């Protein structure tokens, strides 16, 4: 492989890294004496420019991604789901950075932006990664940034506690993941995702079936942690509550998008076992050797695992959210529930890109909505000092615009049409039923729909305080104009994409055209 190719494929990530370093240089080199607000604004501006540059350079990526020179195995994919997820990561990073303008939790906005950008580069890497090692490196790059971001509010004890919990859970699950990967490598003799999938259908894998299952469970644990699926979700409520608002928004959106893109890569590889390799494939006669009857390769076991994770995440996430009084924790449990819906889509994955697109649509719009929701929470928290539900009392009087944004975003999360959350759910469940319109597929969709009926209750609890219950304090709530503008744009996007779902779908489809 020559470095020219590598550079061309990773141009967007490079842009992010360059921007991160630039932010550090400018902030620490020239702005040490400047006012706090100027420093934050400039850091955000540079960060946004970096993301924009990355977005602009995305089309310049080499067609076909990055391959090993010898075997032709793909290391980093380009186009398709990977490109959609990368673009999503960049856009959501921009939105999360905007929340920094109005925050007061740190005096080191430049460092925050730099860490966020590096973390986003990790997210872009795993969105495209097709090799176990690259996946692991990308995940670590993403996660390390997230731990730092969580701990960034240095005056807050909760922030430190959350980061510690997040870090310990994260380290543990990374170990699980690596352990699982090492088994897969041992069984199949390759780290390429497609070769691993193919290898798992070979007789040597069939004879090592128990090891395969252990590996799958380990991997599910490692990735389940990233998407906050029950029972690997325990870090989420603390991290969402303790992290500074832009960090929490970043964790809730960008990290979700990247992790689901990775899961989509795995699902796609499992379906398209022969697609990833352009080199020699030596499988000719070996299929005729009968594997033991209990062993069905990767797909069935993986689907069953994901079904279980999806079901418990949906049920537990929604039920636990009912009992929350802190809006950040509520959003964390709702994130767990939403992860459950998406895992359902992954459990019933389709050969065509239909499922992948439905899941991406869901996670992108969910990310958009949740960034906005954290934005509203951040404003309320800054002004009232608390993210408890009661801090939202009388919001419709104190800041009608903010309340309207909250109304749109929360109703979208609950899945009320014509907002985008509804269409995303409908599309996802239709994709699941398109794969398997009976039995477990139908049963779990029924559970998912029933649980989203439950979710309306807790979203309404917040909206009730904003609109219905009498205000304790009726003073006007000031919002930074840039933050307000951004939040209104997000809400407008949620409405527009809900009314015209074909817009985003068409955009996504354009990435699949060249494949």
């Amino acid at each position, binding site marked *: 492989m020559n470095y020219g190719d590598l550079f061309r494929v990773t141009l967007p990530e490079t842009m992010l890294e360059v921007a991160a370093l630039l932010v550090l240089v400018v902030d620490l080199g020239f702005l040490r004496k400047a006012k706090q607000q100027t420093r934050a604004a400039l850091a955000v501006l540079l960060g946004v420019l970096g993301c924009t540059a990355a977005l602009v350079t995305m089309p310049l990526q080499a067609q076909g991604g990055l391959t090993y020179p010898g075997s032709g195995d793909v290391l980093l994919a380009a186009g398709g789901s990977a490109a959609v997820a990368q673009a999503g990561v960049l856009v959501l990073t921009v939105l999360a950075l905007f929340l920094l303008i109005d925050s007061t939790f740190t005096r080191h906005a430049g460092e925050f932006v730099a860490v966020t950008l590096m973390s986003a580069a990790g997210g872009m890497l795993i969105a495209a990664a097709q090799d176990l090692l690259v996946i692991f490196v990308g995940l670590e790059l993403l996660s390390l940034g997230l731990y730092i971001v969580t701990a960034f509010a240095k005056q807050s004890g909760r922030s430190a506690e959350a980061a510690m919990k997040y870090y310990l859970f994260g380290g543990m699950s990374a170990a699980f993941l690596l352990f699982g990967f090492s088994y897969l490598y041992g069984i199949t003799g390759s780290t390429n995702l497609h070769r691993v999938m193919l290898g798992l259908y070979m007789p040597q894998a069939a004879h090592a079936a128990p090891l395969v299952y252990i590996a799958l469970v380990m991997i599910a644990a490692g990735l389940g942690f990233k998407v906050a699926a029950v029972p690997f979700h325990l870090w989420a409520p603390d991290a969402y509550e303790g992290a500074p608002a832009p960090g929490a928004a970043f964790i809730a959106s960008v990290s979700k998008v990247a992790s689901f893109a990775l899961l989509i890569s795995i699902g796609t590889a499992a379906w398209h076992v022969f697609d990833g390799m352009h080199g020699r494939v030596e499988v000719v006669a070996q299929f005729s050797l009968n594997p033991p009857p209990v062993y069905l390769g990767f797909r069935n076991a993986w689907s069953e695992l994901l079904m279980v994770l999806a079901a418990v995440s949906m049920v537990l996430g929604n039920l636990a959210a009912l009992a929350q009084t802190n809006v950040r924790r509520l959003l964390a449990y709702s994130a767990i529930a939403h992860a459950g819906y998406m895992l359902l889509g992954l459990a019933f994955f389709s050969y065509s890109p239909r499922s992948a697109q439905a899941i991406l649509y869901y996670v992108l719009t969910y990310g958009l909505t949740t960034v906005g929701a954290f934005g509203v929470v951040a404003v309320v928290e800054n002004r009232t000092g608390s993210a408890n539900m009661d801090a939202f009392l009388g919001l419709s009087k104190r800041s009608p615009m903010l309340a309207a944004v909250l109304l749109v975003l929360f109703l979208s999360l609950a899945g*009320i049409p014509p907002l985008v959350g509804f269409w995303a759910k*409908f599309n996802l469940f239709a994709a699941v039923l*398109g794969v398997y319109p009976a039995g477990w597929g139908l049963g779990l969709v029924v559970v998912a729909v029933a649980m989203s009926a439950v979710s309306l209750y807790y979203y309404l609890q917040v909206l009730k305080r904003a609109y219905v219950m009498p205000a304790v304090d009726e003073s006007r709530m000031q919002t930074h104009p840039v933050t307000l503008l951004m939040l209104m744009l997000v809400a407008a996007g949620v409405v527009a994409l809900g009314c015209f779902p*074909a817009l985003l779908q068409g955009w996504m489809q354009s990435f699949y055209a060249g494949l």
Partner: protein
Amino acid sequence: MLAWTIYLSFAGALLEALLPKSKPALARVVALAVALAGLVLAVMGFAAGAGSGYTRVVITDAAWIPTMGIRYTLAADGISLVLVLLTGLAAVAGILFSWNVELRTNEFFAFYLALIGGVYGVFLSADLFLLFVFYEIAIVPKYFLIAIWGSTRREYGAMKLALYSFVGSAMVLIGLLAAYALSGSHSTGLVELAHAGLPVHDQMWLFPLVFVGFGILAGMWPFHTWAPTGHVAAPTAASMLLAGVVMKLGAYGCLRVAMGLFPHGMDPWGFTFLGIGSWRDVFAVLAVIGIVYGALVALVQSDFKFVIGYSSVSHMGFVLLGLMTLNQIGMDGAVLQMFSHGVIAGLLFAIVGRIVYDRTHTRELAELEKMHLGKRMPFAAWAFVIAGVASMGLPGFSGFVAELQVLVGSWYADPWWTAATGVGIVIGVAYTWRALQKAFFSDRLPTADEHPKTGWPKFDAITWPEVAGVGMLLAASLFVGLYPRILLNAIEPAVKAMLAGGMQ
């Protein structure tokens, strides 16, 4: 043209939300203008329908989500036209009776008009996905209308209503997803899905699922319990809309979606249990129970508004029973009853909630008994007498024509249903009479300490919007009662087309 009823209402809602808070009078006038425009459009649409013999006419058709074959299709047949007309009437009347809303007036009308827009949308949708979207749009404004401007236990009533509605729509959503996936259809159009040839065994579970899903909102026993609490908690205009049109959304969904798409779900099971041999029997029996049960419970209420709330459950039972007769006359009656109950229940709620309660500040029949309202508020008393008579189903009013047709239809289907329903009608007369007597014409004399020393305080005078609203609704009921042909001409061909489409 009819499509503009939807757009106008939503535009009106947006405009109201942007109006200044300090000008409630402006908000009222704008709301009334929007609702009147909607009514005019509805009347014009109805009149135009006569020209085409009330057959199904596609109003708008555009690709919406091409990848899934979802189209933005609006169409109207006779049934839609009648219900759109009802919505127009109820919307105008509701605004007239909320002329005295002073708290956050512009927000009130914003939610109100958003609800109306959703209702118009449901009645005009010819695509199941679109219908569902409008159906859910109607849920949220209801919640806020009740929770912010309501009375007795409003937050409880509002949340209960919202959750019941959402659970019902979740069932419908499952039905929609399953019908789409199982039929292998590449369209969610109502006509296309109906012709997609869903296997009978799938229809067998989809029909009850979707029927109950919509039935919850239609006040079907035993899922009716949101209705009395919701009605009582709601502000007058919202309870008028709830009883007047929102419950019709449910019944309309039962007819158009559950029965229209899954007609074989009503086929016999092949065995009978206690004389019940199909889902059709099950729901007919539930409807009859609803009629009798609603009436019995209304008979013992101490809160005036609860009486009307339970009477709604009883009257909606007629609609569901009429649908389950599966014959021309019974289903004609069901649709006519939707219109009739929409008008009459709206009127009753207006009298109880606006004219009486806003002046006496109590709805307890025992309290009202002491107030001599018959003499002190003659307008309310006589309006209620006429509305009560209409509600009992006396000839000359719309309720009579509608319920009679339902009864005749149910006799053809199963005479026992008719017999049981007859009991409900008798109790219906009793509870209306009881409420009337207690609230307005009690001859119980106030005791010495109940009698105010300085004479009875004067109530506020009846205002013009109240007179106009009462007049409009009464005229509608009377007109349809005396000349039911005008609606039946529209309903009959539409019902015939549905029956020919597979329901027998």
